[in-house]
């Protein structure tokens, strides 16, 4: 359905997100650092980006800035995920243009709901069993 960029230096978390997104019918594309993030984004033109904040060699805010300032990418929803609880990090994410912010370990159901909403997809009907 949609192409989603995952920028996450922890390969295991990136893989778990890929599995979840694929199960939702999306196409995940992964970059493990800030530098790769932009080249993958330009090649793949994702509909939404999930950005980790603390990464070696450039943080999620920098990726967000470059997404925002690129004519081909600007305006795509950006969801930040972070294990950091530094004071003010949520506000910084908002300034960087975040559509949503999740603290690790996140509630995956809430995260997927949020992505669905940002992509304008109707929420899943509640399970009736």
């Amino acid at each position: 359905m949609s192409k989603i960029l995952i920028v996450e230096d922890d390969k295991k978390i990136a893989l778990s997100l890929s599995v979840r997104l694929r199960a939702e019918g999306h196409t995940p594309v992964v970059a493990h650092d800030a530098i790769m993030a932009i080249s993958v984004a330009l090649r793949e033109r994702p509909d939404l980006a999930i950005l980790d904040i603390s990464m070696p060699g450039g943080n999620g805010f920098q990726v967000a800035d470059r997404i925002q300032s690129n004519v081909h990418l600007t305006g795509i929803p950006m969801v930040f995920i972070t294990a950091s609880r530094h004071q003010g990090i949520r506000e910084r994410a908002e300034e960087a243009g975040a559509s949503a912010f999740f603290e690790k370990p996140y509630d995956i159901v809430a995260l997927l709901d949020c992505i669905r909403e940002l992509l304008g997809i109707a929420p899943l009907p509640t399970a009736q069993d």
Partner: protein
Amino acid sequence: MAEESISVLVIDDDAGDIALLKRHIKEITDVNISMSSCGSAAEGLATLGGGGFDVVLLDYQLGADSGLTVLRAIKEGRHTCSVIMLTGRGDEAVAVESMHHGAHDYLRKSKLSRDSLRRVLNNAMEKRRLERMIEEHRDHLARTNAELAKRNREIEGFYHSVSHELKTPLTSIKEFLGIVLEGLAGPIAAEQREYLEIALESASEMGRTIGDLLDATRIETGKLSLARATESIGELVERIAKAMSPTAEQCGLELTCRIEADLPSVLVDAERIAQVLRNLISNAFKFTPAGKSVEVAAATDPDSDEWIVVTVADTGRGIEPELQEQIFERLYQVTHEDYATEGGLGLGLSISKDIVELHGGRISVASELDVGTTFSFTVPVDQASAASVEQERLVLK
């Protein structure tokens, strides 16, 4: 005292007085005194500007200038020397005024002698010594303080990286457990599901513990700050109660909610107050046997319309009176083996207390053995919106 040396500056326009002072000072042999003299206020201040003087003997009647003017200039110039005012004809009022303006002492010219001079000089030196000692202590305290602040930042930084390094693998553990549990990696048998659910619950518990640890560190280092906004306490309480009702069901408990009608809005950090509520409610679950009930309530404070009282009441085993004050202490549970079996670090109540107190509120406990325990805390009414509601009421009338 023989090795001690004092550098004295005399500012006096009377050459005779200067000569007299010089003579007396020469007679003081147990202290090494070096003396300079100036005949006018201007010359005196200029000489003082060069520094190096411990004591100034200042004539009150200094030609056109009053000694007070010079005294003020010395004090404003932040010179560290002691000033002794030389007064004529036993003028007590002048002496008192000089002391008010920062003179260390005064000496009547009529009573000038070797002994009186030695006494005031010694006093002045003693004062200087004490002042210097205080200064040194103050410097020492400032350095210690800076050192502690630096260490605090280091500790905080360390906890941040520990927490980051713990949360990242924890996220991966939880996510893959979830993926397998939901059959995204193929079908699983009922027994496998049961065990994976246990693992997932344990991982979640670990996540909460890490969060508590970080909060406790942040409170300890004074870095916990609130993001306050106008909130409906009723909605907040109901939301948390609703989120926790599945857990209540699992524990075989009934969780009820009682919200007073028309409560005013509160000014709180909703996330932090939610954390306090979750803490108190899960504590209540822990200590209440299956089949009984827990009630969460919000009502106006009977003593003040500036506060809302939120209570979490269980019908559990109760807390011994002598323990009721201690349970809010940090790490209480860890140091009391009776409770250690209940799990957790015991940080929850102390964090809750800190959060409530950061809001300016109070938290307390009332408990009766085998009847139950009620935790109460107060949250501040949003005065601005309360005032506008009052205004509306008046308009409606």
